[in-house]
């Protein structure tokens, strides 16, 4: 398995500002993903964070709004640009664990945009 850590645990920001969410894995992982909680219970895949190249975004998410960096195999950053109240949610990073097909999740970052 793999352990994922996220920082910060929660953040409150004003509309129009930007903020960064960091995700760190305790071992090198090939695939890293970012999810947004929706409908208060499920998760929507935002993008795949690719090491050393641009992230691959899902429909409804753009690199201008949610730029993602992945400088190495243990680290990724999600930025929320020009934050709006509609961006208030919990954001999770995830990764497959080693040779297993199982996917593990970070604890999440709760974002509130005022």
């Amino acid at each position: 398995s793999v352990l994922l850590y996220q920082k910060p645990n929660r953040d409150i920001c004003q509309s129009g500002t930007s903020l960064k969410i960091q995700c760190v894995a305790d071992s090198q992982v090939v695939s890293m993903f970012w999810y947004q909680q929706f409908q208060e219970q499920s998760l929507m895949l935002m993008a795949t964070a690719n090491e050393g190249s641009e992230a691959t975004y899902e429909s409804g998410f753009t690199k201008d709004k949610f730029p993602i960096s992945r400088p190495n195999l243990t680290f990724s950053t999600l930025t929320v640009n020009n934050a709006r109240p509609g961006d208030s949610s919990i954001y999770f990073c995830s990764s497959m664990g080693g040779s297993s097909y199982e996917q593990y999740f970070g604890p999440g970052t709760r974002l509130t945009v005022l």
Partner: protein
Amino acid sequence: GQQVKQSSPSLTVQEGGILILNCDYENDMFDYFAWYKKYPDNSPTLLISVRSNVDKREDGRFTVFLNKSGKHFSLHITASQPEDTAVYLCAAANQGGSAKLIFGEGTKLTVSS
């Protein structure tokens, strides 16, 4: 469109009962199927999963059945307990491709004592 669908937003069952959670998917390329348990505002935790080369996997009180021709998989929970009260998310992925996990909308399960 929604690639993975859970038809029941919520379900209530008496303690000790058997319950079945259902999930339908659209993508023929999915080859990995999983059920996660999630508490409000917490990250999901993996309950049980199967690859497409098996049609059933059992782990204690939890069994997952896969019907590839019907693009359907289900989670059976026996001897339900109040501690099973949570949101259950089904998910599927094409592990041979992008490996990205796609979730259903979730079923909120309540086990009453």
